[in-house]
């Protein structure tokens, strides 16, 4: 969690409800959930809470379910695809055919991942008619396709040109040509089989094929070869009548089958033929690649000679379309991956929660139900001067800026918890927290005023007008001794209220002198080893809201006639866990 202190995360409880359903089903070895789900306090340190805490800005709110919705409890549906480099919208039919990459001129540098540009290699003294040849080059690291021996004739349709050229300028046959070649080889093989004396003549494979084979087939080659091989094998396997396409009665094959079924038994018997089992691939053109130790040896030699710098870093390798490469000379420009615009729906009621505008360049939304507009915002800050001066034990606050990264252990520090209400109705808030924070460093936390009201989010001018009529109490809740009085709010405004939280940060090392807290040595030793982020002070706070709101239109319609009076108000409740990150406890 790399946000600056203090921060607030909201918990979406979708995983709890999720596990409840599944755990019932999961018969075997689910750890018995000992305590009731509702009773359990939220632990921001449990590894799972990483996956359920979000900043308020990331959350959506489903008005029908009246619940917070996080990334996990929405269904996303793709509305449009576009290339982030050229902002060209790609229709969904093209996605199916050409995959998830831009098929125009957009490429990323395979070395540094920045967007590449098409540059001309034209000689100014002797310009060619087309302005070419062209190369793709990276404006940041100056890598260019020149280094892998690829130049283009035209400056458009780069990806098509690139797909036809292998590194080093060798032409790659297209899919069609490859298919044709495969057929040719197969025919040749077949003829040879008929001609020769089969038992003896297995050695004299044609030299012409050998020449081709010294380049090992690429992965795509093998894949298409295998795919074609399996297709022919399966077609040869299944009798025509069983191909899954023509199950309709009109096709001659199934007609024959039905006739066969209902005709006399004599013909049925003789038809049953023992099917030949599918065979294995027998050669390169069928996708069989025999392992060759020579390639291994060559790779080792090359590493030995050329060293570290010619090999690829893992990130570069994984960004490639074919990640099974090792050397810089095998790099290819990466077509940029497409981005999508996605709408979000609530998983349980299927209502749309967010829907962006269809235009690619627009960043606006048609529908956007943010939790921001439905859930009060909690924020925390250190309470400055007056208290710390009075309490006299807070030298940390005497510094002009409060250092959240070094909380003084053992010294009570006051923080202001600020709640602002986005709703148009006043809200009664009840806060709860456990008296000590979970984890090894136990800090004591007291919310001095756990129950209070927050005003409605009315028009800004209302505030200005009302303030003269009924002055809001702005005197700090200090009692005669200058102590903060418990049970009173600190300050309030039009739609916000702030209360004081007292925190006594725990000690990073168990206190051995001073207080004798008990506890044997073994336990202390265990405590001394702090995990990463164990000094982080995070306070889980359970927030419960009560308010009266206008009824949702739907409910008004369905509800009984008594309640369907216009302007009927209903009582609503909402509750969730939030985690407030206060800071880091300083080592003593």
């Amino acid at each position, binding site marked *: 969690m790399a946000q600056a202190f203090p921060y607030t995360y909201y918990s979406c409880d979708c995983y709890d409800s999720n596990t409840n359903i599944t755990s019932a089903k999961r018969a075997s070895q689910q750890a018995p959930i000992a305590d009731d789900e509702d009773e359990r306090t939220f632990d921001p340190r449990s590894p799972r809470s990483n996956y359920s805490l979000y900043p308020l800005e990331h959350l959506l709110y489903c008005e029908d379910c009246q619940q917070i919705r996080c990334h996990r409890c929405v269904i996303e549906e793709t509305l449009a695809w576009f290339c982030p480099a050229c902002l060209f919208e790609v229709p969904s039919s093209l996605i199916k055919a050409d995959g998830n990459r831009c098929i125009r001129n957009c490429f990323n540098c395979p070395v540094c991942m920045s967007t590449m540009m098409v540059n001309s290699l034209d000689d100014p003294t002797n310009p060619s008619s087309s302005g070419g040849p062209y190369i793709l080059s990276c404006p940041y690291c100056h890598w260019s396709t020149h280094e892998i021996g690829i130049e283009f004739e035209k400056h458009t349709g780069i990806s098509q040109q690139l797909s036809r050229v292998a590194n080093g300028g060798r032409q790659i046959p297209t899919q069609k040509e490859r298919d044709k070649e495969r057929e040719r080889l197969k025919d040749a093989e077949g003829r040879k089989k008929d001609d020769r004396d089969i038992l003896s003549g297995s050695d004299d494979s044609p030299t012409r094929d050998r020449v081709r084979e010294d380049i090992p087939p690429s992965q795509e080659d093998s894949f298409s070869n295998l795919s074609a091989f399996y297709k022919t094998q399966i077609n040869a396997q299944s009798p025509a009548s*069983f191909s899954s396409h023509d199950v309709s009665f009109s096709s001659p094959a199934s007609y024959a089958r039905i006739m066969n079924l209902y005709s006399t038994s004599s013909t049925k018997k003789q038809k049953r033929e023992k099917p030949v089992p599918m065979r294995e691939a027998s050669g390169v053109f069928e996708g069989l690649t025999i*392992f060759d130790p020579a390639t291994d040896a060559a790779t080792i030699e090359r590493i030995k000679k050329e060293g570290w710098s010619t090999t690829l870093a893992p990130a570069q390798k994984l960004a490639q379309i074919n990640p099974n490469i090792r050397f810089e000379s095998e790099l290819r420009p990466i077509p940029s991956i497409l981005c999508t615009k996605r709408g979000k729906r609530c998983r349980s009621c299927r209502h749309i929660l967010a829907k962006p505008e269809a235009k690619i360049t627009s960043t606006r939304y048609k529908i956007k139900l943010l939790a921001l507009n439905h859930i009060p915002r909690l924020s925390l800050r250190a309470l400055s001067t007056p208290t710390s001066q009075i309490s006299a034990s807070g030298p940390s606050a005497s510094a002009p800026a409060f250092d959240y990264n070094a909380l003084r252990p053992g010294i009570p520090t006051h923080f202001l918890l600020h709640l602002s209400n986005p709703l148009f109705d006043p809200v009664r808030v009840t806060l709860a927290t456990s008296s000590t924070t979970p984890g090894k460093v136990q800090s004591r936390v007291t919310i001095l005023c756990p129950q209070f009201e927050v005003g409605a989010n009315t028009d800004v001018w209302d505030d200005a007008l009302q303030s003269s009529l009924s002055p809001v109490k702005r005197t700090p809740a200090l009692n005669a001794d200058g102590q903060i009085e418990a049970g009173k709010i600190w300050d309030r405004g039009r739609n916000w209220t702030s209360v004081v939280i007292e925190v006594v940060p725990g000690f990073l090392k168990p206190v051995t002198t001073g207080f004798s807290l008990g506890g044997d040595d073994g336990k202390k030793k265990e405590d001394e080893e702090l995990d990463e982020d164990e000094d982080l002070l995070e306070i889980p706070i359970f927030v419960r809201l009560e308010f009266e709101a206008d009824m949702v239109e739907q409910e008004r319609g369905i509800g009984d006639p008594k309640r369907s009076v216009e302007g009927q108000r209903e009582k609503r409740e909402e509750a969730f866990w939030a985690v407030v990150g206060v800071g880091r406890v300083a080592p003593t």
Partner: protein
Amino acid sequence: MDLAQVDIGLVEDKFERAMREAYNKYFLTDVKPRRILLALPPRMPHPLMSSILQILFANFQAPSITILSSPILSTVAAGLRSALVVDIGWAETIVTGVYEYREVHEKRTIRAGQLLSEEMAKLLNAELDDEAEPGAPKTDISFEEADEVLTRVGWCKSRPKSNRNTLYFPARTSPILEEFEDAVETPEPTITIPFPRSTPPTSLTIPFAELAKPADQALFATDTALNEFDDHELPLHHLIYRALLSLPMDVRRLCMARIIITGGVSNLPGLKSRILAELDALIQQRGWDAVKTYGSVSARHEQRLRQQKENLDLRTNEGEDQVSESLIPDIPVPASLKEPEQDVIDHKLAHLALRNGPPPATLVGGAVRGVETLGAYAGASLIAKQGIRGVVEIGRDKFLIYGLQGATRDKEVSVVAQQRMSMGPNIERGTAGERGSWTLGVWA
């Protein structure tokens, strides 16, 4: 797999996040939910399977999920029906014998990626400590650094150690090999590895030969005697040898000529050749004899074998001389070493079979041979492309109601009943109809 210490809920969270990223960033599928084909190892624990399925069904709206076993998919992606699949993964290496698209045998060892990575880290730490001035804190390089070194410049000696050559091969050939092996190149080739992340950034120059040691150490454990290994940590070549040994003879014949080495570590240059060479040497030395030592009679046993072999050599050598045949009286040759009699009818039948049957290349067997595979996932793509449906196919609605308990107990859906010849028992070609019940097949 030990799941006692694993928080399944956390696994679910992580899996869900990974899948969401994969969907949103790379798959870019359209609104229509897609069928999912999962490649899982055949020994997947049920709780894991259940949670994976749950997330795919519930969060990603898959209408149905087909599960196929990964060694079989590797076999498919190599274009074979039978193979010995050596999957060198992260936590363990799994050797699976596949015969006619069916797993027949499985052995595993912990000598795999994790151990290799640790060895490499150890090596680099030691080298860096040597470089650093004394008194400096011990270096502890991160996993990423060790992994990067391993994938970039790590390699594996492609021949077994020379002293073992002398052990394996007849005396005639070994000295040459040995000299060739031990010839030290001058100057010794080195590799310079930068470590930009350490403070201050350093670079390490290390002899090239050193970089092959972790693989030697982790995967082949060259320094340790065989009797010191526990069952779960056999070196790779011994594991493969044992797996082959425990296969039935016919299956072994096919499998040893179709050794598929796959998994992430298998990309280490030289590793495949090394495994095959070691295996070949083991077979030459031991034959297919499950008994490793015959105790006190072992000398005699070896002697007898050698004599047999020499006799055979003698005979074949002499066979080339025309004269000797009539002169030397019949030495009784053991039946196993006799040339089988030629039968005219057999010859004709074989001829016919070759003409009509599959090409001879598919019948190769009996010698160690490696075959490249495209990997289990490519195999799954191949199968999906042909519209083949697996035996284990789980429908969304049924799973969401019953969970894994909804599976029938039958391990296999009968293929014959559907009047359809298929690619094998694990993979069948289906029509569009829905099945009434579903099974977990080998995963049950």
